[in-house]
C-alpha cells in the first residue's frame, strides 16, 4: 500500500493507520479514533490490506445451507425483533419433526451441507427435546447441525438445572456440531438492557461460547449494530470478541449486520450502507485473530454485499435456502448459488463452496454453463 496516500492526515490518525499497515494490533482507543476519523476509503484500504494478508489466494467462500426456525415463540421478546410471537398468538408455530426432516431433505437436494436451526427461546422445550431432535436428524441425514444460539443454550441449561458445560456436552453427544453466533447483538450490557432486556447479558453469551470452544465445537460471532449503541460500544464489542478468541481460538468467523427497524417495537432508522461498510472494515481491522469475516447480503442486498469484499469481507455467507427472521422486518433479498458465484467473480475473485469449518468443498473456477448463456 502506498502510504503517501495518507499524508495530510492528522498525526494521531496517521500513527494508527501506520500501525495497522505494519500489521500491529490496535487497542480500543485507537480503534475508536479510526472509526470516528478515518474516511470510508481509508477504512476500506486498511481492511483490504489485512484481508489480503490473511487470504492471499483471492478466494471468496460461501456455504449452501438453510435456516430452519423451528419456532417463533420466544420468552425474550426483544424490542428490535420482528420475528417472535407470544405463545397464544394465532401466528405462533412450532415445526414438527417431519417438517424439519422435509426441510433437511430439500437442503441436501440442493447441495446443502449445514442447517442453522434457531428458534425463539421456547418456554417448554427442554434438553430432552433437542437431544431427541438432533439424534434423530443424525440417524437419518449426513448434515452439519450448526444450531442454537447462546441465548437458547443458556435457557435449556436453566430449565434442566445443568451447567453450560454439561448442557453442551449432552447436546454435542446427541449431534450438535457447532454454534451460530447470533444473539450477541452488542456485547455491552447498557445496550442489551435497552434493546433486549430479557436476553442473557454479555458475560453469559461469552461463557457459552468459551465453553463450546473448550469442547472443540467451533462457533461464529455476530454483531447487530445500528440500534441504540455508540461507536465506542461497537469497538468494545469487537475487543471483547478478540479477547475471547485470544483465549480459545474457537471462532471461525465474524458476521456484523445491521438492525432492521421494520415491524419492531424499537423502530427508528437503519444504519446506512456507508456505516455498514465502515463498521465491517473496522471489524476486519480490530479482529486480527479472526480468519473470516462475512458479508451480510441478507441485510444489505447483493450490491453492497459484493462491494463489502473490498471492505474486509472474504465470505459471502450462505445461500440461505430459507430465511425468516430478517424477512419478518420487511427485508427480503434472495440469492441463488449462481448469483453468488457471479458476484464473486465479477469482483475479481474465485468463488468456492465451503463447509461449516471453512474447508473448501468446490472451487468454481470454470464458468457455469447457464452463466455463459446469460452473459453471451
Amino acid at each position, binding site marked *: 500500500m502506498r502510504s503517501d496516500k495518507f499524508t495530510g492526515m492528522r498525526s494521531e490518525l496517521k500513527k494508527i493507520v501506520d500501525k495497522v499497515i505494519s500489521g500491529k494490533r490496535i487497542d480500543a482507543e485507537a480503534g475508536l479514533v479510526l472509526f470516528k476519523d478515518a474516511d470510508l476509503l481509508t477504512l476500506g484500504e486498511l481492511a483490504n490490506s489485512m484481508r489480503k494478508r490473511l487470504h492471499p489466494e483471492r478466494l471468496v467462500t460461501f456455504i449452501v445451507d438453510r435456516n430452519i426456525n423451528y419456532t417463533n415463540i420466544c420468552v425474550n421478546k426483544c424490542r428490535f425483533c420482528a420475528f417472535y410471537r407470544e405463545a397464544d398468538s394465532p401466528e405462533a408455530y412450532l415445526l414438527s419433526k417431519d417438517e424439519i426432516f422435509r426441510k433437511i431433505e430439500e437442503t441436501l437436494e440442493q447441495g446443502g451441507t449445514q442447517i442453522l436451526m434457531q428458534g425463539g427461546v421456547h418456554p417448554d422445550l427442554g434438553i430432552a427435546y433437542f437431544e431427541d431432535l438432533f439424534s434423530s436428524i443424525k440417524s437419518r441425514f449426513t448434515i452439519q447441525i450448526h444450531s442454537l444460539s447462546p441465548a437458547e443454550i443458556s435457557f435449556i441449561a436453566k430449565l434442566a438445572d445443568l451447567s453450560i458445560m454439561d448442557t453442551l456436552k449432552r447436546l454435542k453427544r446427541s449431534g450438535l456440531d457447532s454454534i451460530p453466533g447470533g444473539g450477541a447483538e452488542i456485547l455491552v450490557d447498557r445496550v442489551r438492557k435497552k434493546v433486549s432486556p430479557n436476553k442473557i447479558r454479555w458475560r453469559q453469551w461469552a461463557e457459552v461460547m468459551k465453553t463450546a470452544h473448550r469442547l472443540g465445537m467451533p462457533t461464529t460471532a455476530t454483531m447487530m449494530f445500528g440500534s441504540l449503541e455508540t461507536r465506542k460500544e461497537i469497538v468494545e464489542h469487537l475487543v471483547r470478541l478478540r479477547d475471547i478468541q485470544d483465549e480459545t481460538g474457537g471462532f471461525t468467523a465474524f458476521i456484523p449486520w445491521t438492525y432492521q427497524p421494520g415491524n419492531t417495537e424499537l423502530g427508528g432508522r437503519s444504519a446506512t450502507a456507508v456505516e455498514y461498510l465502515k463498521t465491517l472494515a473496522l471489524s476486519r481491522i480490530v479482529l486480527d485473530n479472526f480468519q473470516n469475516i462475512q458479508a451480510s447480503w441478507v441485510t*444489505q442486498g447483493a450490491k453492497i454485499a*459484493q462491494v463489502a469484499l473490498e471492505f474486509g469481507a472474504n465470505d459471502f455467507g450462505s445461500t440461505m435456502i430459507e430465511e425468516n427472521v430478517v424477512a419478518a422486518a420487511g427485508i427480503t433479498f434472495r440469492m441463488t448459488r449462481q448469483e453468488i458465484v457471479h458476484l464473486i467473480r465479477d469482483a475479481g475473485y474465485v468463488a468456492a463452496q465451503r463447509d461449516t469449518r471453512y474447508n473448501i468443498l468446490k472451487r468454481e473456477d470454470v464458468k457455469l454453463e447457464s452463466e455463459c448463456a446469460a452473459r453471451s
Partner: protein
Amino acid sequence: MHQPQQLTTKEEMSFKQIKEKAFSNKRLTRKDGIELFKSTDLLELGRMATHVAQKKNGNRVYFVRNMHINPTNICINRCKFCAFSRSKGEPGAYEMSIDDILLKARGAEKGVREFHIVSGLHPDLPFEWYLDMLRALKKEFPKVHLKAFTAVEIDYLAKLSGLGVTDTLKKLRNAGLGSLPGGGAEIFSSAVRNTLCAEKITGDRWLEVIETAHRIGLRSNATMLYGHIETYEHRVDHLLRLRDLQDRTGGFQAFIPLSFHSQNTEIKKSAYTTGFDDLKTLAVSRLLLDNFDHIKAYWVMLGEKIAQVSLNFGVDDLDGTVVEERITKAAGGTTDGSMTKEDIIYLIKQAGRTPVERDTVYNEIKVWR
C-alpha cells in the same frame, strides 16, 4: 461483457501510470478508460475519482427537490431494453391530458423546483399539444423549472412541427422549456443500438440534437445506459463522444450513468447490474469526463445504498426527491420511488459529505453544514 481478471504485471504498470495522470489532473485516453473498466481495484478507482470530484465540487453533494412526470407510455419506438413503453391500445397503455398533468403537478410538495418531464413518442398528439402543456405548467408554476424532452423526443417533435431542430427548440423554449434531461443516449455505438433500440435515433443524431440545444443556450444532461449487451469499449467510446461535444459547447451540466434493469424487458440478463459495476462506472465516468462539472447517481435505479456509497466514488449529485417515477419501476426497480428531503440529507451527511440543495442549473439554494 468482460470477465474481470487479475491484472498481469504489465497491466499493473499501466494502471499505475493512469493513476499518476489522474492525480496530476491530466486527461485520460481511450486506452486508459478501458484499462480502468477492466480493473477490479475498486478502492483505487474510488480514490482517483474522489480526487477529481473534490477538486471540482469540494465536499458538496447536490440534490434538487423535483417531481417526475411521464405524460404517456405510448411509444412508436419499442426499444428492447424498455419495460415502460406500450403501443396504443395495448393493455397498460396510458396517456395524461394537460389537465391530468396539472393535477399531478399540484400534488408536488411545497418547494419543488423542477418538473422532469419525459415520455414515449406518442403517435397522434400534435406539436401544439406540447407547447400547450409547457405553457399551462409555466402559467400555474412560474417558478418551477421545466426540464423536459430527451433528444429523442426533440427529434420527434421537430418532425411533427416541420420546423427543424433549432426552431422547434426555440418554440419550446418560448413556451417555457428550461433545459433538457439527458435521456435516450443509451449507448452511442450503432452496433449496440441496432440490437437494443433499432427504431430510436442514432447516436450521431442524439449528439447533433443536443449540440443544437447547447448552441441556442439550452443546457442539458447526458446519460449512458449500461449493463446490457455493451462492452467496456462501447462505454468508453460513449463517454469520449460526450467529452468531445462538451469541449465544443460546454452545455452539459451532469452526466448520469443509468444501470440497466432487465425485468420485464426483452433482454435476458441478470436482473441488476452489480455493485462493483455501478461504482466502477460512476468512478470511471468521473475520471474520463474531466470537462463535466457533475456526476450524478440516480438512486431510483441504483438503490439508495449504492447511491450513498458512490459519494466516495466520484459522485457529487444525488438527483432529486423524485416523487413518482414510473420508468424504472416498470423494470423491477426496487426503491419505492421517493425519498424525502430529510432522507437525502441524512444519507449525504452519513457519507461524510455536505448536503446542498440546488436548482436545476446548480444555483445553491441551501447548504447544510
